[in-house]
């Protein structure tokens, strides 16, 4: 029986900018994610995906509304939230002068993974992500694909129940991107709750159990692919997306 792991209610975020004034980056967003599912946030650049995920990861403070991870409120219990969370995005880089093994050890310790089992856990991650050969090499010497594997290992090293992947395939070639998607599916199959944001339709189609279409900071639709197809009578996600975002259907 899947349980609700992430709960977002009326979440809003306003930014203030000298040029644009007050900007509603995210407005009254509601959704829940359950264990063992990949929940996709699908939206164009600037739609509010990253801002939403950063609020859930406690890096940004909501202007309004609440978000809870395993029942912990992001404003009141940020440390508990982050302990149960692995956050991966294009902007979460690694320390170039650490080796892969040191990187994993550092993040296991910082995320308060039990001290006595840290060493075993790190070796397990090295084994699992095929890093054995490079575990002693500095991150700066690794290829993009290898760095990305270390990054995912870094995200899950403390065994968090909830994982956030914010546009993880940006800048990756096809093979690396597919590899990463496979890894994410495996994590889902292990029972992790996965929040996944993307602007690539095929990725969302292939990966997500449920999809929330987000535009100008608001959720326009939220359902499984079949449900979205039934509601819009479109087959392709691209058409469904355009339907919700523009309010018009693309000419056949």
């Amino acid at each position, binding site marked *: 029986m899947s349980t609700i792991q992430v709960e977002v209610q009326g979440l809003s975020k*306003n*930014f*203030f*900018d*000298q040029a644009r*004034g*007050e*900007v509603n980056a995210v407005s009254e967003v509601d959704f829940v994610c359950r264990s063992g599912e990949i929940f996709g946030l699908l939206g164009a650049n600037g739609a509010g995906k990253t*801002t939403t995920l*950063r609020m859930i*990861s*406690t*890096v*940004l*403070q909501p202007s309004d509304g609440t978000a809870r991870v395993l029942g912990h409120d992001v404003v009141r219990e940020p*440390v508990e939230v*982050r*302990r149960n*969370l692995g*956050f991966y*995005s294009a*902007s*979460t*880089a*690694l*320390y*170039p*002068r*650490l080796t892969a093994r*040191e990187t994993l*050890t*550092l*993040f296991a*310790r*910082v*995320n*308060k993974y039990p*001290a006595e089992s840290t060493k075993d856990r790190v070796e397990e991650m090295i084994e699992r992500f095929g890093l054995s050969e490079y575990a002693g090499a*500095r991150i700066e010497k690794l290829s993009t694909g290898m760095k990305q594997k270390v990054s995912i290992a*870094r995200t899950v090293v*403390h065994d968090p129940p909830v994982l956030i992947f914010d546009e993880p395939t940006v800048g990756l070639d096809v093979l690396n991107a597919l590899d990463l998607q496979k890894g994410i599916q495996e994590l889902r199959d292990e029972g992790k709750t996965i929040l996944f944001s993307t602007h690539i339709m095929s990725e969302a189609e292939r990966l997500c159990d449920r999809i929330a279409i987000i535009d100008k900071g608001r959720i326009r639709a939220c359902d499984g692919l079949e449900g979205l197809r039934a509601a819009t009578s479109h087959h392709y996600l691209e058409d469904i997306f355009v339907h919700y975002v523009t309010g018009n259907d693309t000419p056949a």
Partner: protein
Amino acid sequence: MNPRTVSALVTNDLRQLARNPRLLVFAVALPLVMWPLMWYLTSLTTERRQERLESRTYLYAVAENPASADGATWLDRALARVGDDGRNGDDGRNGDADPEAGPAVLFERVAPPDDLPAALDDGRLHVHLAWEPVTEDGGAPRAVLTYRADLDASGTAEGYLRRALRSTRVEVREQRLAAAGFEADPADLLPVERIETASEEQTSGLLLGRILTAIIVLMMLTGGSIVATDALAGEKERGTLETLLTTAARRIEIVTAKNLSILSVALITSILNIANIVLWMQLDVIPAPEGLKLVIPVGTGLLLLFLYAPAAVLLSSALLLVSGRSKTYKEAQLLFAPVMLGALAIAAIPVLPGIALRSAIVVVPIANLGVAAREILTGTYDWPLLAAAWTVTAGAAALLARASVRTLSAEKLITASDTDAADLAGGPALFPRRVAGWFAVLWALLLVWQLNSGGGIDGRLLITINLSILGAAAWLMIARYRLPLRETLSLKPPPAAAWLGVLIAAPAGLVLANGVVRLASLAMPIPEEWLEAMADAFGADLPLWQMLFFFAVLPGIFEEIAFRGVLLHGLRARLNPVPLVLIAGIAFGFFHVDLFRIPPTSLLGVFLVIAVLRTGSIYPAMAWHALHNALALSGARIEQIGLTEEPTWWHYALALAAILLAFRLMSRPKVS
């Protein structure tokens, strides 16, 4: 705070640094070589220059005129003693050359040139002498030396010749005195002898104490900035900051770890640098400053270490704050320069003569520890002031550390958005965030003034403080932030009972304020001169109405507008009642930059803040303040209002009860 997390983060920082060979070479190894090398080269070139100047032949010419015949004998005598000066004693009278002094200086006469400036310019001539005719009977001709100060040889030649002529003149004068019948040796007239009672440790301590703080600050900052730039600005630029911020590490753990990294690198580089210089001094490669003893007793050393600890935390927090506020590595490096200059300026204060810890300097972070260190090293310190200095700097360090924790929570770190609601709205919304800065600048101005005015107060000074500084600043803040006047200054009628409250509170407050003075004097005995200065100020020779106007009415209006109006309004938006009352009250005390007036005026400040908060109006506070000062004046002399009489504990208990009753009377009726 989890020590495991902190140690993991510190290890990470240090590991990053240790694996950056270029940074290690430029920031750690190179200074180790450069410092002593620079020192060595400086002393070497000075030595060489001296040698060169002493061994060369200087060219001089004498103008041909009728007076030169008179001057010729003078010149011969002077030339015979050229170069003796300075090595044969202070008075320059002794003609016996010191055989140890090195080769004699050679002067060679050349023909006077047609074009003097050109000859000086191209070195054909170093100094030109012209004799002006004797003006009075028995007088000597006047010597006029022409030279070029910017040319080494010319400047030196002039110096030798001038000193030689002067000592010749002294000698001749004495001969003439003797010839005129003056029997005693003129040198025996009013002889002055000096006896110095400072021990070697004290002399050396003063020397070391003056420069120690500046050296430590310089080394802490140069060493600390190696890590500090990378600490937040570097993480931001690399993209590792968001990785770190999304982990389970608390912000305080991250800041603590960063501070520890900065401190440990600063400490290691400082120790390396100092040990390095001491080593070269011991090896006599570089000269140690004269009179400086490098041995500090263990106890003193430990005390100094304890003393400097909060200064180190303060500096590392400042560096971290700069790093956190910068968007890029480059910006952080740019911002370090003003921090460095500011800190060095403050650390140089102990060099100034006459500044003792028992003054307003005790409330200036870092500078107070510098003065304290100097006093420790000369053995003239007292514990209460030492504790006060330490506490002030530790408090400032805690505030800065808190600010850097807040920087880590700032969303500007992560997002492109560079403002928030208050920034954008500006005006009144922004004021609560700026008010502390405004008052800090005001306070610094007052402090500088106090340190330069030699203490003491008089009517004029008070008027200037009240009207020009406080009034103008309050007006500026109200205008700049478009603050609503009525609300900012609490210009509302108070409940009628509040006036009765004021009548009770003012005398009771004065008794309690005097109690605080007595309490504080247990720790910091008030010097007699201070009491006399205060009595002079308050007993000034002015008509009573003027006294009341200057010392009671004006402060009652302008200090209230500034402190219970503008300052309180700004702080109110961000503080809970208890910290608000304490901070706004004590800030008022600190503005009476005189050390001994801070405790009682802080208490008065606390009372007046409570009065405004309870009545919702500034008027009772104005009346209370004016009445308080008037009552204090009415004794005319400060000793008569409690310091010479001995109030007992029940006086104070009664006063406290009266104050509580007054506050009760001041409460605003609840609006139902």
